[in-house]
């Protein structure tokens, strides 16, 4: 009686494990031995190897360009503006104005030909619940921040639920007109541009290459509004602001005259 020959082949999963070096020693040895005597499995392994390489090539060919951030000041990560304010207040005594003067100034110098490159910057607010206002304000704060022209304007009663952006020529001023605001605002400066960011108010500033993230918390008891000034070159072409899940607001600062105001409502706004 002939003994039936039991033919078996290695599973696809095991071949991928072999290919990826994910086998243990025993499985590796068994697979090696089998492949040495099994042309179909060896061919199948070759096919998997070829497909893997082909996929790598196709993916690489189709890749989007990696943003070329070259920002500096990572050592400033975690700078606590609240602490800076408390130290300054202690030095100045009780006469400290309600606004924290310049609490931090950061310069992002991004590599690239500033004059030649199309310059773009965008402000990204990505966190879903960006600014949670605990109470509304009826007016926009008018106390001047050094170097920032005040923009006194009557604000609607629900201004406390808004983030106000006031582009003045090449400057873009972002104001959060409320005390005790909590949340996170992220500024992203696109490669090839340069910008200077000044922040006044209480908040935690986190600097990563290409980004400045400002976070305020209810623990900031000074109730100072947080203002962010972004100086960008006059050739700035496009600024994009996103608040929560709302549609991005895009505009060219040069197209809006001095004193022009752009407001972006938070979720629930109109």
């Amino acid at each position, binding site marked *: 009686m002939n003994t039936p020959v039991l033919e078996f082949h290695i599973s*696809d999963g095991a071949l991928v494990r072999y290919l990826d070096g994910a086998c243990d020693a025993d499985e590796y040895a068994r697979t090696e031995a089998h492949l040495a005597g099994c042309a179909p499995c060896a061919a199948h392994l070759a096919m998997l190897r070829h497909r893997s390489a082909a996929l790598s090539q196709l993916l690489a060919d189709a890749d989007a360009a990696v943003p070329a951030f070259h920002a500096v000041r990572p050592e400033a990560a975690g700078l606590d503006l609240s602490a800076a304010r408390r130290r300054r207040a202690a030095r100045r005594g009780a006469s400290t104005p309600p606004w924290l003067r310049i609490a931090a100034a950061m310069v992002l110098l991004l590599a690239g030909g500033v004059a030649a490159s199309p310059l773009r910057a965008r402000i990204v607010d990505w966190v879903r619940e960006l600014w949670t206002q605990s109470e509304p304000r009826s007016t926009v704060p008018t106390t001047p921040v050094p170097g920032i022209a005040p923009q006194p304007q009557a604000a609607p009663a629900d201004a406390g639920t808004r983030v106000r952006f006031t582009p003045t020529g090449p400057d873009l001023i972002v104001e959060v007109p409320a005390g005790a605001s909590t949340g996170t605002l992220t500024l992203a400066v696109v490669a090839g541009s340069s910008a200077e960011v000044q922040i006044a108010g209480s908040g935690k500033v986190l600097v990563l290459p290409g980004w400045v993230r400002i976070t305020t918390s209810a623990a900031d008891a000074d109730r100072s509004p947080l203002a962010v000034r972004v100086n960008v070159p006059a050739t700035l072409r496009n600024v994009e602001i996103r608040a929560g899940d709302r549609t991005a607001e895009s505009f060219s600062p040069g197209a809006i005259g001095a004193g022009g105001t752009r407001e972006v409502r938070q979720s629930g706004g109109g």
Partner: protein
Amino acid sequence: MDAAALFAEHYPALFRYVARLTGDADLAADAAQEAFVRLVEKPPREGATRAWLFTVATNAARDAARTRNRRRALLEQRPERAPLGDAPADPAAALEQAERRQSVRNALAALPERDRTILLMREEGFSHREIADTTGVAAGSVGTLIARALDRLAARLPLDEESVG
């Protein structure tokens, strides 16, 4: 922790991975950013920082995708609101590149999210164990899922052509 060094080491691959995963470069930049912010604010307790970054970015991208889909729908209704990009230097080459990119994105998008994540983490050199930890599948199943995903992609992309690969 040297955030700048970690950023320089991992950001390009992290961005590339999320961009492939989502087909959305803006979303990828945001998700990669979120991962690094969390790394600085709440660093992982143990080593394996790279796998941790990719896991955080994967989850962040998944969360952000829903928001972005809504935003994209709005932008499509108001195309004049879409941010401007630089004009391509060579329109024909740009078109060809765009078509190639789109076909790859379409093929990846047709995969279940879990399989896409597995395949793309493999592309970034993660071990089957690391892939399993991120995706929640058994490590022993990763090979099978990769092979199956390659099969599906081969039906849409020229993975079996001799000139590719």
